[in-house]
């Protein structure tokens, strides 16, 4: 049963209201400290980007449980429903911001999550030697990890990034495969 746009927004607000909060600036500073640790530990910008994605993935696979428990969303009917849920409910619930879904491809297997307000990049300016850094790449990992736990294998990447000169943040999500459900052994017993 698909949820309407307004319902997504409402669910997002409700979930957000239930969450304990912290200062967004403190959060941004903490994320900055973490990125700096990675930059020091890895010489290579590509390695930092990959590590951010991995960390995001690790977060995503755990975050999905809290999301499902607290958001009040049922199973998503289709990929469109999933996309709206990510943008309007999940982003709102965890980061307090609402994203938009845009740029569906013809097949309906890929979409973009557009973020106008990104709490991670408060205060950040990329220096020239780090112009290839995907500072918020953790978000791609989170989406990938969370969706994998609900049987969707996706690829996520930043198509547009405010820190690299674009006017908004756009995360491109492409569905690669719907994973088969792991059936419990008991399911087969009666067969």
């Amino acid at each position, binding site marked *: 049963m698909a949820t309407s746009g307004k319902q997504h927004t409402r669910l997002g607000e409700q979930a*957000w*209201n*239930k*969450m*304990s*909060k*912290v*200062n*967004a*600036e*403190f*959060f941004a*500073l*903490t*994320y*900055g*400290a*973490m990125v*700096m*640790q*990675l930059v020091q*530990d890895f010489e290579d910008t590509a390695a930092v980007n990959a*590590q951010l994605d991995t*960390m995001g993935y*690790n*977060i995503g696979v*755990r*975050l999905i449980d*809290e999301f499902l*428990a*607290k958001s009040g969303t049922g199973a998503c009917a289709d990929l469109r429903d999933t996309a709206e849920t990510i943008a309007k409910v999940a982003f709102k*619930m*965890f*980061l*307090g*911001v609402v994203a938009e879904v845009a740029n569906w491809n013809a097949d309906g297997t890929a979409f973009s999550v557009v973020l106008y*307000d990104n*709490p991670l990049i408060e*205060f950040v*300016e990329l220096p020239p030697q780090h112009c290839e850094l995907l500072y918020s790449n*953790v978000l791609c990992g989170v989406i990938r990890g969370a969706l994998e736990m609900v049987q969707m294998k996706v690829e996520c990447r930043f198509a547009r990034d405010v820190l690299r000169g674009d006017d908004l943040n756009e995360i491109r999500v492409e569905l690669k495969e719907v994973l088969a459900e792991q059936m419990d052994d008991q399911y087969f017993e009666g067969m």
Partner: protein
Amino acid sequence: MAAPGQRLHILDRKIAVPGSSYAYPTTRDTRVGIVSASSNAYAAAGGRTTEVSLSAFSFLLSEMVQHVQARVTSIDALERRLEEAGYAVGLRVLELQQFRDKSVGKRKTRLLQALQWVSADMWRALFGKTADSLERSTENADEYMIHELQPITNVFVSVPPDLGQLNCAAYIAGIIAGALDGACFPATVTAHTIELAGQEANITAAGGPRCKTVFLVKFSEEVMRREAQLA
């Protein structure tokens, strides 16, 4: 150190602090603009976000600890790296808050003023509350303790048994050290887990934390000498 599979994990939400809203005096222009204070401006819908969920913060911190853990060989080293990460944040927070609090933006010249700024003003700015208490050590004149029942770093992050001594509030200890150093009161600051006893243990709700965190602040000789001369 922990086996690769061991992870810090997030506690279930049921045993949690009540959700609370942190109101911060923060409105900002675009990134090139001034950071200016405005009274109690918790921006409602339409404004730039001033809050995120504690969950997001906890997940982030948990990953940060995991990352560091893989690169060190002792809990002490892990805590030192968290402190280092916090130190840079502390310097920045000091600069930011001192700029914003125009009315109280005067330089702190006495040790107690600086400590009170940290445990009240800075604490409120970062954590939405003042620290539970500030005490002076009875044994050492250069030591003070800031008590916090549940530092924000520990609320939703539980530590696996083999990292039992780790206190993620080492990150906050670093923040305190950075802020004090920036204000010209260099000190070593460490986070310690103390079991609750007696009255304190009774006060916390059933099922609540059995330990609290004490930040031990040990001021440098230079600071103590200066304080003695000013007394």
